[in-house]
């Protein structure tokens, strides 16, 4: 069993010292996720050290220290991108077309590996040096290429969000409304910059419809959904921020999907 020294704990805390962190980097979503994950792991580290030594936890903590180096890679990738992208003179350029899917796949694979590690995700990593394995999946490549050539900002109109609210309220039967709200959140998160505003609009409509005909809805719906804003709703569920909501519900959603698959896709 490997021991964790006090020095390592101290270094780990230094690593997440927000006062030392570049505030601009702190605003980055991926970086925030990495920090949050790091913080959770450190909490676990402290618990392990000062309570009973659990071998499984020790493995987890050792893995965390190994990942720390890779988190640095993520931060460096952002810093380098800033250096390369800023304050450059205006230049002429020419577009060209080439058959270079392999290079692109390798790039995505490489960057994916860093980001996935950097964000502390437990999902499968793409191997950086095993391009041939990924190249066996031509559909994935085609999707990627397609998406790169069709980018406009995704927006949702009030009418679309109102319809979403109506559909939600018109469902018959027993539903996990928190799960359904999260599915709405996922859809509206296609525009991450406006998702909060969209969710507030959604709850506005829900609240309006319920208040107009409160006797027409089941107690379950009223209890679950009658909030005038999204922030009120997530606060009622004990979440301190939309970030926390997304993270926790995202994990639950994965578990939910797994259970659904295990029980035959119901």
């Amino acid at each position, binding site marked *: 069993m490997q021991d964790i020294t006090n020095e390592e704990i101290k270094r780990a805390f230094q690593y997440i010292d927000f006062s030392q962190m570049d505030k601009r980097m702190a605003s980055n979503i991926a970086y925030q996720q990495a920090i949050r994950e790091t913080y959770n792991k450190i909490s676990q580290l402290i618990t392990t050290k000062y309570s009973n030594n659990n071998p499984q936890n020790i493995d987890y903590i050792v893995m965390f220290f190994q990942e720390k180096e890779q988190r640095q890679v993520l931060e460096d990738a952002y810093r380098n991108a800033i250096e390369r992208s800023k304050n450059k003179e*205006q230049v002429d350029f020419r577009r060209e077309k080439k058959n270079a899917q392999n290079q692109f796949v390798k790039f995505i694979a490489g960057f994916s590996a860093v980001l*996935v590690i950097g964000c502390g995700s437990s999902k499968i990593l793409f191997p950086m040096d095993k391009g041939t394995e990924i190249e066996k999946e031509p559909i994935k490549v085609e999707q990627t290429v397609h998406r790169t050539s069709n980018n406009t900002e995704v927006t949702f109109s009030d009418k679309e969000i109102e319809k979403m609210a109506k559909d939600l309220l018109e469902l018959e039967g027993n539903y996990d409304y928190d799960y359904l709200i999260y599915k709405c959140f996922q859809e509206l998160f296609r525009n991450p910059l406006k998702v909060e505003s969209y969710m507030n609009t959604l709850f506005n409509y829900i609240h309006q419809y319920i208040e107009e005909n409160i006797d027409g809805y089941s107690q379950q719906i009223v209890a679950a959904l009658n909030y005038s804003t999204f922030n009120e709703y997530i606060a009622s569920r004990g979440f301190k921020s939309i970030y926390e909501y997304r993270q926790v519900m995202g994990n639950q959603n994965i578990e939910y999907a797994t259970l659904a698959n295990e029980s035959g896709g119901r």
Partner: protein
Amino acid sequence: MDYININGNEYLILDEIIINNIRYLYLSLETSLLNIMVNKVINENGKEYLSGLDTDDEVINALDIYFQRHKEEIGL
């Protein structure tokens, strides 16, 4: 695949995203991984030019949106 040629150097166009009516190009030298660069497209007299971004925040914001857009491929 789309490339652009800047002063004789070829960059792979990873993506092209419009944010606040500004068209951003996400570029990479194909010979090297993890070297993403963001430029914006400026239109002058009907001709397109590439320009660097003005602030760190603008780069970070542009990268955030890129990663959100590609989160499924990336696995976030």
